[in-house]
């Protein structure tokens, strides 16, 4: 279980400090499929980066399976079984897809296992194994390889930051299946930052983050309709379009 206790994260900006995360308390239970959603700039990715250790909280603590990991490095947290798929994964000149997946796995991955991970994210595996994860791959391809690299790891908590961004419709359906299968196994906690309806509907729990705080949280069946209503109310354009049709 991951727990954020009174976590705040502030950054200096000009003569001011910006509160990116404002005193959040949050528990993510084992084996749950949690979706974090909310407006852009609300602090979703920062929460993921705080859990992974890429950013350190200004105050508060992060507890993982009873251990205070607030001061642990990214490497140490990775070794405890926390993984994070970047929203914009970096590219590596000279590093092949197979090598990257092997590094993620922690040892050399046999070809057939590499292929299985790639197939799961909708990539025709044989073509990709020896390709370099460099600028020759499209944004969507890099993104899918990133997701495959998380699957190649043996994790307790897997965090995916907008995995659907930049991925075409066909591959997206395949990804949904993959996430469904991961969720079914219940062997790890999955945290997905997403705005996608289909992803939100799969969740055990939805957490809505806005202005650095938890604005709402609960079962997907309860939260999702509320989010939709909120959208209807706040979206002027949609209201006018409705009237125009009357």
């Amino acid at each position, binding site marked *: 279980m991951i727990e954020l206790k009174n976590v705040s994260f502030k950054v200096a900006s000009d003569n001011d400090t910006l509160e990116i995360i404002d005193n959040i308390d949050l528990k993510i239970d084992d084996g749950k499929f949690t979706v974090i959603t909310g407006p852009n700039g609300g602090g979703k990715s920062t929460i993921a980066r705080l859990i*992974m250790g*890429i950013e350190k909280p200004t105050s508060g603590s992060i507890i993982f399976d009873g251990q205070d990991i607030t001061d642990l*490095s*990214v*490497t140490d947290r*990775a*070794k405890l079984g926390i*993984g*994070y798929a*970047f929203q*914009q*994964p*970096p590219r*590596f*000149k*000279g*590093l092949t897809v197979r*090598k990257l997946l092997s*590094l*993620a796995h*922690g040892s050399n991955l046999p070809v057939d296992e590499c292929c299985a991970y790639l197939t799961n994210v909708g990539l025709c595996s044989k073509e990709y194994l020896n390709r370099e994860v460099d600028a020759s791959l499209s944004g969507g391809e890099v993104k899918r390889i990133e997701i495959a*690299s998380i699957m190649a*790891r043996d994790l307790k908590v897997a965090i995916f930051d907008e995995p659907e961004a930049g991925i075409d419709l066909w591959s997206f359906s395949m990804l949904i299946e993959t996430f469904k299968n991961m969720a079914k196994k219940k062997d790890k906690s999955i945290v997905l930052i997403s705005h996608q309806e289909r992803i939100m509907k799969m969740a055990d729990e939805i957490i809505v983050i806005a202005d650095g705080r938890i604005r709402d949280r609960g079962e997907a069946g309860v939260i999702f309709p509320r989010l939709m209503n909120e959208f209807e109310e706040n979206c002027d354009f949609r209201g006018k379009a409705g009237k125009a049709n009357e």
Partner: protein
Amino acid sequence: MNKIDSHMLEAVADMHSIPAGAYNIRKNGEGVARNSTENIIIEPKKDKPGIDIIIKPGTKNESVHIPVIITETGIEELVYNDFFIGDDADVLIVAGCGIHNSGSKKSEHDGIHRFHIGKNAKIKSVEKHYGEGEGTGERVLNPVTEVEMDENSYCEMEMVQIKGVDSTQRETTASLKAGAKLVIFEKLMTHGNQSARSNMVVNLNGENSSAQIISRSVAKDTSEQVFYPRAVGNNLCRAHVQCDSIIMDNAKIRSIPEIAANNCDAQIVHEAAIGRINNDQLIKLQTFGLSKEEAEEVIIQGFLK
């Protein structure tokens, strides 16, 4: 052949045993093993140190290994190796030099390689440089490479300095006739207070000749590197020069790709970049459980692969 010899030969020429095909092994200033084949003849030069490598026209799928190792301190040599590659041949040439200096004197190997590549011939040449040894004596390698390419020939050169070379001054020149294609991959790593300079001039003289120069380097500690590749288009031709460097610690790098056109049908492009290892790359690998140092090593190895 002792343990150090075997290790050096493996490092510079991937040789695990005596290679199949033609070879010449030079150790501490003299030839210690040589083998010619029906199609590839290796002869020592009569007037100066070095060898002639004569590859008969039409020779296919054969290889030549000509590694040089220096395991004594205080050896300084200048060696001339001439390759005469016959028309239509298709061969692999593996050169390379390793210096193991455990003494206090400088050890230096200056190799002058001249490639005369015949019409329609195709070669791949790999040359690795490596230095090691616990001594304080400098390890110096100054290679000169001259390439003459006849019509429609193809030449791929991989020039690699792995590590441990205190000082290097590399001079490479090439001239290409019609339809010839040259591809150069230069990979260099310097550390400590090493220095490296690589000058290159590629003259594209023939119609439809083309060249691609890719230079990748990593400079660590207080080492210094200078790259000066030049592509000169004298005809309808294409060339691309690319220098890409990772800079670390207190190192210094100068990268000066130069392109020149003396013909309005010449198309020549260059690009150069120097920068530190991208932080996102380091973090990504750390999220796999690698330490920062391990992550750096993986990135450098990949970059120089």
